[in-house]
């Protein structure tokens, strides 16, 4: 399989000292630029620049676009104002989660979906039922600037426009047409394929006084996990069948992304899948990854581990757990491994070092690590 290069590939080649690459969405991307821990910590205390061009982006437009987005996604995008976005899931007919992404309203009759995993066949064929026109936008460049100094770097670079949370703004930046958004952990900058290297260079130059580092995909995954965001492919396997009822939003603890007030595809399956669950953070008392398994408290099952990874910021293994109902305080077990439940996110992006320390094992809200149930 031949891998494609993103618009920033030339700069990634220059910065990738150890030649560590990975394939994501058919693109060749730097796994890390020398040190995963350094990149993760830079995102906590300074800023990192990472390539998101591998993310699947598709636009939907047409007269019946509102009917389509209302039916296709679990939150009603038809109610969005232009320039704003919603985090959505889309389900198959039985209520199994097929994907997660950001639905952005670009104009009255035009929407953009940004997702870590491509689901072209499903969404495009569904759009065809409504006569909605679809096109992929994945060739364009997309960078993310993450960290407490990200805003300052943008200002130094000459980008003063501040998009609203979950929103975007289009602007001309020293002769380049770009879009700045706040859909994820930091700022995303969207540009033409041809402008990619210029954008990269300008941002790196502006970030030099702030020790801006390029970050690889491994760091990005770790930061995402530390921030409490669960994404398909990396953290769970989405359904690839039209009628398979797994994984349900309940099993992934993603019920907060479900809007029960409107009719969406797979709603009946979702409602039939049982009561809501809570996605929670888990601190594990081991240094190696633990496979998905049941969590027990005093021998009684209370939930499941979804995925886990090492956090350089917390100096330990962290993971996602799905909990059903209430559970007692204190230690729980995953097999022979002792764990502790904590609130999500583990570490909110943008917090100062002093604040972030309170999210260490034991919890930061004085509840013995118990997540909020609200």
């Amino acid at each position, binding site marked *: 399989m031949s891998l494609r290069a993103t618009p920033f590939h030339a700069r990634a080649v220059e910065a990738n000292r150890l030649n560590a690459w990975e394939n994501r969405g058919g693109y060749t991307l730097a796994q890390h630029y020398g040190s995963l821990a350094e990149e993760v910590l830079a995102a906590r205390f300074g800023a990192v620049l990472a390539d998101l061009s591998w993310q699947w982006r598709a636009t939907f437009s047409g007269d019946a676009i509102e009917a389509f987005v209302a039916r296709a996604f679990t939150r009603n995008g038809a109610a969005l104002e232009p320039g704003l976005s919603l985090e959505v899931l889309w389900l198959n*007919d039985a209520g199994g989660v097929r994907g997660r992404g950001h639905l952005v309203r670009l104009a009255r009759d035009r929407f953009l979906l940004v997702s870590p995993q491509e689901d072209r066949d499903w969404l495009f064929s569904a759009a065809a039922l409504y006569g909605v026109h679809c096109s992929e936008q994945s060739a364009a460049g997309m960078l993310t600037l993450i960290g407490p100094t990200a805003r300052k770097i943008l200002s130094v670079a000459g980008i003063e426009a501040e998009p609203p949370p979950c929103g975007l703004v289009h602007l001309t930046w020293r002769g380049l047409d770009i879009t700045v958004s706040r859909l994820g952990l930091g700022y995303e900058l969207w540009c033409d394929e041809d402008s990619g290297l210029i954008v990269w260079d300008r941002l790196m130059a502006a970030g030099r006084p702030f020790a801006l580092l390029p970050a690889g995909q491994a760091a990005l995954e770790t930061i995402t996990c530390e921030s409490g965001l669960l994404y398909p492919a990396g953290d769970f396997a989405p359904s690839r069948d039209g009628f398979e009822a797994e994984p349900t939003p309940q099993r992934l603890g993603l019920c907060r992304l479900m809007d029960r007030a409107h009719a969406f595809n797979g709603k009946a399956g979702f409602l039939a899948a049982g009561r809501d669950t809570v996605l929670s953070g888990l601190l594990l008392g081991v240094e190696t990854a633990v496979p998905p398994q049941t969590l027990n408290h005093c021998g009684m099952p209370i939930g499941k581990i979804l995925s886990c990874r090492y956090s350089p910021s917390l100096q330990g293994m962290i993971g996602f757990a799905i909990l059903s109902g209430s559970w007692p305080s204190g230690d729980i077990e995953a097999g022979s491994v002792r764990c502790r439940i904590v609130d999500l996110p583990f570490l909110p992006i943008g917090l100062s070092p002093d604040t972030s320390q309170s999210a260490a094992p034991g919890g930061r809200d004085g509840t013995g690590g118990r997540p909020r149930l609200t």
Partner: protein
Amino acid sequence: MSGPLVVIGAGLHGLVAATYLARAGHSVTLLEEAAVPGGMCANRVPISNFAVPPGPHLFTALDPRMIKDLNLNLAFVARDLPLVGLRAEGQPLLLPRDVHDVKRHLASLSQRDGMRFAAFRREHFAFARAMRALWWEEGTLDEPARSTLRRMQVTSAAAWLDGAFESESLLAAFSFDVLAGGLSPAAAGSALLFTWRAAQEMCGLQGAVAIPAGGPSQLIAALVRTAESAGVTLRCDTPVRALDSDGESVRGVVLANGEVLAAAAVLSSLSRRQTLIDFLPPGTAGFATTRRLAKPQSCGEAKVLLTLSALPKVFEQPGRYVIAEKLETAAGAHAVARTGEIPADLALEIVALPTGGIPPVLLSILVRPVPVEPVGGWKDHATRLVQTVLHRLELHIPQFTGLVSGLAFVPPKHRDPFSIAAMMSPRRTRIETPLKRLYLCGEAAEPVPCLSGRAARIAAAMVAADLKEAGP
């Protein structure tokens, strides 16, 4: 009691469902697009001096409980018809119900097959009986039946029968039945179609076939009388334009004239595609469901009707006559039909019926496998298909064409795509739809499409129970 109920389609299934619901105390309106009720059983195909139904002339699956519950008092011209395989050379192969008779008839072809037939049928019927629990009841399968089911799910009808028998004439006689459901006999799981057929019960006999006196239209007439006496409001010439839905549940139906009928529940005896795609806004039934139903079944069965001036001698014994080349060519014929062409190796099922008038004999011939939408349309292919059928009959009955006084052709019906997986799903999943208060009660709710009334009876009971649970 809940609000009014609407049943779409006054064919056999629609009439049965409406009658059961009316008897349960509901106010039921039965809507029929055509001028007369009956659907596939209504006499609407003209031939010579008669009109005959486009559907089958013999029944393999009429629900005995439905006949009893609704006091239909059906009379049959012939019951438990034997299967007769017409052979190019030699005597026809007669396969009556009595296994000893079968053994005797098979003896001249294969001693081994004669010996094995009784055990084969015993085991097969036992498995078919067990499968009823899955198909029509809430019951579960015992472990031996489950084990057989696991095997049958991955077994093709062609391989299964080929492994059981060696006589080519016997295998050819089964060729018509293995092409049921529009499925290839080489397809994994097609062996289950044979089991489904054996699981039917006609006239108290498992796997039997029968011809109702007066034809299928008499059955419809009896059902209409029963429905009307139960209080069903039958509205013919009333096509439905759409279902009134809020995207999650159905609130009624919108008629072609714009009238809206509110309903506590809607039962459709039409196909799944018509009900969920044609009557609802796009995507309402689910994206995957819509996609699955978008492509109808590619292969089906056509019907050729011939009136004859005299009954050929070969058809004197009442029976279900099958003309087919070989079992092994049936899969090839199916593959040809899927491409939209008329295959050369067609399997024919022929039933000779007395008309009681002039001409005196009607031959009802079902032809499988044929493309549902042949390349160029049926206008081009119908004549060729009839000629092929006449040619095949001429090979077995010299001077046959000279007896033909009239003919008619019924193209294959558009059906929902058939899958073996649907045969394994519980009955509720076949009857319920993705929308609340919308149910299927026709062929689409059967494990294999057929005219039985069973799905309608079960759907009516399910709807009545659901309405009771939901409360007023």
